[in-house]
C-alpha cells in the first residue's frame, strides 16, 4: 500500500510555522517514514504543476500556514483544497488571520505607499512599485495582486481542522499529525487543542486573585515583574482568560504575558471583545474620569486585544475603508 500523501504550504506568514515542523526534531523521521511529502516549498523542490497534475483528493492532508492576502495564495489554497481530503489551517495566521490580519486597519494603497515610498528605510525616488504585469526582454513576468482584505483560510476555502498557535507547539503538531495518521480525528471544524482557557494550565494560576480590581494597566516593559505572580494581579494585560490552552503557558513560563495566539475557546465569537469585557469591567474607579484614566494604560486596544484575531473578529476590518 502506498503511503498517505501530505502537503505543507505557506501563504502570508513569517516562516515560524515551518520552523515548528523542524522542531519536531527526530520525531519528524517517524512522520516522514509514514507519509509521502508531495509539496513543501520551504524545504523541497516541487512545482505547482506537479500538484495540478495530481488527481482530486489524492493528498490526505494539506497543512497550510499563513493568512490569505494575495491572488496567488488564494489560488493555491483553492487548488490544494481540491486536491486534499483534509485541509488543515496550521498556525494563528491561517486560523485567525494572525499578525498579517492587523493590516485590515489600513487600505491596500496606504500599505503600498508606506512600504514603497514613505517608509523611513526607503530610498525610492522614482516611487517605483511592483507591477502586476511588466515587459522585459520580450518576457512578460506577472506578479500576484494583494487583496484589499486579509483573510483567514476558512474565509476563502472550507477548512476541516485548525492547529492553533504562533507558532503551534511541537506537542500539538505531533498530536494533530498522530490523530490524522491513526484516523482518530475529532468532529470536523475542531480546533485541535483543549477547549478551555489558558489559565487552567498556567503555572501562576494559584496567584490569580478571585476578584481583580485594576488601578492601572502596565505594559511589561514599564515595571519589574514578579516571576511567580499572575500577570493580572500585577496590572498587566494577559490574554490568558480568553485564550485557548494547549501551549502549556509557554510565554508566561518565559516571563511574558499571553498575547492570545491560540485564539478563543469554542464559546467565544470575538476574542478581543471578550477579553476587553473581562478586563475593563474590573477596574477600581466608578466615575467616568477615573475609568478613562485607567483605560489610558491600554493605548492600542485593537493591537492588544486583536493581536492575532482581527481578520476573524466580528467586524473583520476597519469598516470605513474603501476597497479599490
Amino acid at each position, binding site marked *: 500500500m502506498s503511503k498517505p500523501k501530505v502537503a505543507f504550504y505557506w501563504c502570508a506568514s513569517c516562516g515560524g510555522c515551518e520552523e515548528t515542523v523542524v522542531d519536531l526534531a527526530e520525531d519528524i523521521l517517524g512522520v516522514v517514514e509514514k507519509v509521502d511529502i508531495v509539496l513543501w516549498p520551504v524545504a523541497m523542490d516541487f512545482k505547482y504543476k506537479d500538484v495540478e497534475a495530481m488527481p482530486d483528493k489524492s493528498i490526505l492532508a494539506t497543512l497550510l500556514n499563513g493568512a490569505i492576502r494575495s491572488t496567488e495564495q*488564494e489560488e493555491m489554497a483553492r487548488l490544494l483544497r*481540491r486536491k486534499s481530503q483534509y485541509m488543515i489551517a496550521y498556525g494563528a495566521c491561517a486560523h485567525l488571520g494572525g499578525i498579517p490580519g492587523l493590516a485590515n486597519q489600513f487600505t491596500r494603497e496606504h500599505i503600498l505607499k508606506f512600504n514603497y515610498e514613505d517608509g523611513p528605510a526607503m530610498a525610492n525616488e522614482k516611487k517605483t512599485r511592483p507591477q502586476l504585469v511588466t515587459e522585459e526582454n520580450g518576457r512578460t513576468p506577472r506578479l500576484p495582486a494583494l487583496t*484589499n482584505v486579509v483573510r483567514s483560510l*476558512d474565509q476563502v*476555502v472550507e477548512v476541516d481542522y485548525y492547529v492553533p498557535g504562533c507558532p503551534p507547539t511541537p506537542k500539538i503538531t505531533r498530536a494533530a499529525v498522530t490523530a490524522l495518521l491513526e484516523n482518530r480525528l475529532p468532529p470536523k471544524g475542531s480546533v485541535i487543542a483543549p477547549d478551555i482557557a489558558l489559565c487552567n494550565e498556567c503555572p501562576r494560576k494559584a496567584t490569580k486573585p478571585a476578584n481583580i480590581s485594576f488601578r492601572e494597566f502596565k505594559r511589561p516593559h514599564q515595571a519589574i515583574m514578579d516571576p511567580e505572580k499572575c500577570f493580572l494581579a500585577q496590572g498587566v494585560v494577559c490574554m490568558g482568560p480568553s485564550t485557548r490552552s494547549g501551549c502549556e503557558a509557554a510565554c508566561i513560563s518565559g516571563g511574558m504575558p499571553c498575547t492570545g495566539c491560540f485564539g478563543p475557546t469554542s464559546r467565544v465569537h470575538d476574542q478581543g*471583545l471578550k477579553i476587553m469585557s473581562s478586563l475593563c469591567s474590573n477596574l477600581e474607579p466608578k466615575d467616568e474620569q477615573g*475609568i478613562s484614566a485607567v483605560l489610558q494604560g491600554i493605548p492600542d486596544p485593537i493591537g492588544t486585544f486583536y493581536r492575532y484575531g482581527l481578520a476573524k473578529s466580528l467586524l473583520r476590518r*476597519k469598516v470605513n475603508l474603501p476597497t479599490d
Partner: protein
Amino acid sequence: MSDSTTKTPDGNWTPRIVAFFCNWCTYTAADLAGVSRMKYASNIRVIRLMCSGRVDPQFVVDAFAKGADGVLIGGCHPNDCHYVEGNYKCLRRYQMLKRMIADMGIEPDRLRLEWISAAEGEKVRRVVNEMVETVKQLGPLGIPAKFEQWDKEIDALAEHVAASEGAGAAGSSGQNKPQTAHTAHV
C-alpha cells in the same frame, strides 16, 4: 436582520437602532412611557436584559455587524443597580468599547449609554428621539453590504479559477463554500 437597511413606506432610509435595556430601571421606564401613551420614534428595537452589566460588548458589535445603525444601552443610575455593581461594569466596558469601535471605523456617536430610572418615562422618549436624530445625521452604517463588497474580490477569483480549470472541476468550487465571518456566527 436580513437586509442591511430599513426603509420607510416612501422608500427613504430610516435608522435601525438596537436598544439593550435593563429589566429593573430602563425597561420599566420604557414600559411607563408606553402606558403613559408617550410617543417616540419607532426606529428602536428593545432587547430586555436583566442588567446593563449583562451587555456583552459582543452583543453591541454583533448588532452593528448584522445591520444596526446605532446601539443604545440603558441602565440604572449609579448607586441604583439592582445587582449593586452591574452598571459600573457596563460604564467601564462602554468607555473602552467607544474607543474600539472608533478605531474600527464606526462613529462613536452610534453607541450611547444612558442611565434611566424606572420613573423616567419621559427620559426614554427624549433619549430615543435624540438618538434617532443623531443616527439620521450620521446616515446608514450598512456593514452587511460592506462585507459583500469586500468579498467580491474573492468571488471574482473563484470564478476565474473555476473557469481556468475547465468543466472537469466545475463542481468543486461549489462544495468548498467558504465560511465568512458573517455566516460563521449564526
